[in-house]
């Protein structure tokens, strides 16, 4: 019976074909470690956010007079409303944590490098969309920090030359953050996740075209690739289990950990909180914003702090294959950068006084300095490894790949597949 149904479908829709292509025959390097699970986890949490968000929207009122109360209505009167809300509020933090690790992995293992530039760029687009969505979502509970956070961040657009003031009013729909802002943020907060879904689809299509990178950073010999299913489905599911233990640990035992006390006070435009602090995932960028004395400069620096990642494929000029594993210079840079990001995050949470101003400036300088140094470091590093030779493991992997490429070249020549042949030759050229 089931077979018949599948046969019926397969005649009309390439279901079997797709399962084979994307799962049971989709080749994945067998040496992937658990750092490669975070993309899947991020997708999982996206679904958690979508589902919990839709249920929240059924009870939430996007009106300045009712928004705060409607959250408490959800918490106290809706069946399992507290669960839905805490899933969503904890989910937002979890999403960023997963995405940051996912991006950190990409940087460490050099997964942004050829031919994965488009994968990298769509990923960064996803990060920006995620940030926008989180920022708008944070206004919705209409607490003090919601209000003042939105007030401060929308005001930043006032630095736009000539039309600054109009841009701010256009964003807020009013002179100050108010009912118009709340309703439009709600509308967009509901819309953006669907744009994110489309971007994820593109991200995945790009991934399945170029295939996963791997810890060595060198394309593996075919025998070292194994099908996604069952090997990585079960591995990712185990990873998911570990993640869920931590995630639900927070949801059930410390959900308030992710909610600032100030945001349990209803928004009051007449009372400014002593310090306005964004959510933890914005802190490093907020620190960069405040480290530049000039407002326009600060906003530009903050935007650049993320946009500069787009240039990674060009800034990294080394031809040494692989990620940080075979590249001592780059490895140190990545570590310094990770630490610097932590410092920035810490500074972002403090009032901009005394030592923190200086610390913030130094950390900002280091942050951008690393990007500017990368072209030189990567070039030097390449020269050095030409002289000293690559580690034996890397040599072996490259040799194996070349052998395989040569074999397929031979095969393709016989088959007269000109297009594919060109590709292979290009790759061979790059590798030598």
């Amino acid at each position, binding site marked *: 019976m089931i077979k018949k149904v599948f046969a019926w479908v397969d005649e009309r829709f390439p279901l079997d074909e797709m399962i084979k292509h994307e799962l049971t025959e989709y080749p994945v390097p*067998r040496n992937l*470690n658990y*750092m490669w699970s975070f993309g899947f986890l991020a997708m999982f949490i996206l679904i958690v956010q979508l589902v919990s968000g839709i249920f929240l929207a059924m009870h939430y009122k996007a009106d300045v007079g009712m928004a705060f*109360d409607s959250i*408490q209505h959800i*918490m*106290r009167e809706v069946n399992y409303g*507290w*669960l839905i809300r*805490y899933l969503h509020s904890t989910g937002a933090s979890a999403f960023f*944590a997963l995405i*940051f*690790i996912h991006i*950190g992995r990409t940087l*460490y293992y050099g997964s942004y490098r050829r031919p994965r530039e488009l994968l990298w760029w769509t990923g960064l687009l996803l990060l920006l969309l995620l940030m926008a969505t989180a920022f708008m979502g944070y206004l919705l509970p209409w607490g003090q920090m919601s209000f003042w956070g939105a007030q401060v961040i929308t005001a930043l657009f006032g630095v736009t030359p000539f039309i600054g003031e109009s841009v701010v009013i256009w964003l807020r729909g009013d002179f100050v953050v108010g009912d118009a802002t709340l309703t439009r943020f709600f509308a967009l907060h509901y819309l953006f996740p669907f744009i994110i879904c489309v971007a994820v689809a593109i991200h995945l299509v790009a991934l399945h075209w170029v295939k996963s990178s791997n810890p060595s950073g060198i394309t593996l010999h075919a025998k070292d690739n*194994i099908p996604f299913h*069952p*090997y990585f489905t*079960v*591995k990712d*599911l*185990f990873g998911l*289990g*570990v993640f*869920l*233990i931590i995630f*639900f*640990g927070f*949801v*059930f*035992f410390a*959900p*308030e*950990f*992710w*909610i*600032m*006390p*100030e945001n*349990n*006070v209803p928004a009051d435009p007449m009372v400014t909180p*002593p*310090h306005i*602090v964004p959510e*933890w995932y914005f*802190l490093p960028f907020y620190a960069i914003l405040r480290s530049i004395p000039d407002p326009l400069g600060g906003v530009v620096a903050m935007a650049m702090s993320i946009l500069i990642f787009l240039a990674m494929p060009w800034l990294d000029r080394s031809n040494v294959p692989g990620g940080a594993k075979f590249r001592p210079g780059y490895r140190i840079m990545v*570590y310094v950068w*990770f630490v610097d990001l*932590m410092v920035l*995050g*810490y500074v*972002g*949470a*403090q*009032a901009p006084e005394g030592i923190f101003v200086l610390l913030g400036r130094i950390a900002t300088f280091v942050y951008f300095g690393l990007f500017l140094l990368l072209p030189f470091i990567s070039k030097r590093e390449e020269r050095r490894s030409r002289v000293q030779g690559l580690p034996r493991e890397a040599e072996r992997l490259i040799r194996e790949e070349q052998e395989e490429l040569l074999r397929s070249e031979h095969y393709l020549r016989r088959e007269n597949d000109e297009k594919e042949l060109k590709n292979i030759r290009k790759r061979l050229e790059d590798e030598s």
Partner: protein
Amino acid sequence: MRRLLVLLSAVAMFATAQGVMASAAGALKMVDIDSSEQARQRGAEIVVGTCMMCHSLKYIKFADLKEIGMKEEQITALLEDQDIDDRMLSLTPIEIRKESYGKVPPDLSLMAVARQKGPQHIYTLLTDYYYKSAEQEETDNHLFPGIKMPDVLAYADAESDDERAEIEAQAHDVASFLVWASDPSAESRRTIGKYVILYLIILTTLLYLLKRRVWSKLH
């Protein structure tokens, strides 16, 4: 190394978040707040009898007090003009409250989560009153200098350690009740949570074994 890095980043993230939370907490008295029904019930009585002259708890209904084990008679004994299904609103008209204190006293339903270390904040606030001068005319508060709320538990008037201890016990019970009020589902949340985590640990262990088995087919 990699694992260390992940761990490190997680720790740093927590530290940052903790830093945000701790930065505003001043000289709080770090008492442990017990969550027994008795403490909460005593707290509820003080809150209804004293605090609700000025404050409301608009997200709570009197009937909800059954959740902390109060009997219907106990609750009705607390009521004045209200019905048991009414929300816990102050009976003093809002204009009068505003006029007397220059501002409407804040709603207390979320107070325990609306300040850094909320329960300790409430406890400290109530037991931090003192007389500004020997004439004993005007009180002030160490935690919140210039507070517009009078010394409602008369802490500054207490003359002996016993009296002070009694007021401190009251402040503790009030904090205990307000912790419940800020999140009435907390108890059932933790109960369900235990089962969820237990289930996940078993499931994850099985998944781990399954993973090992599936991968063992590779040579």
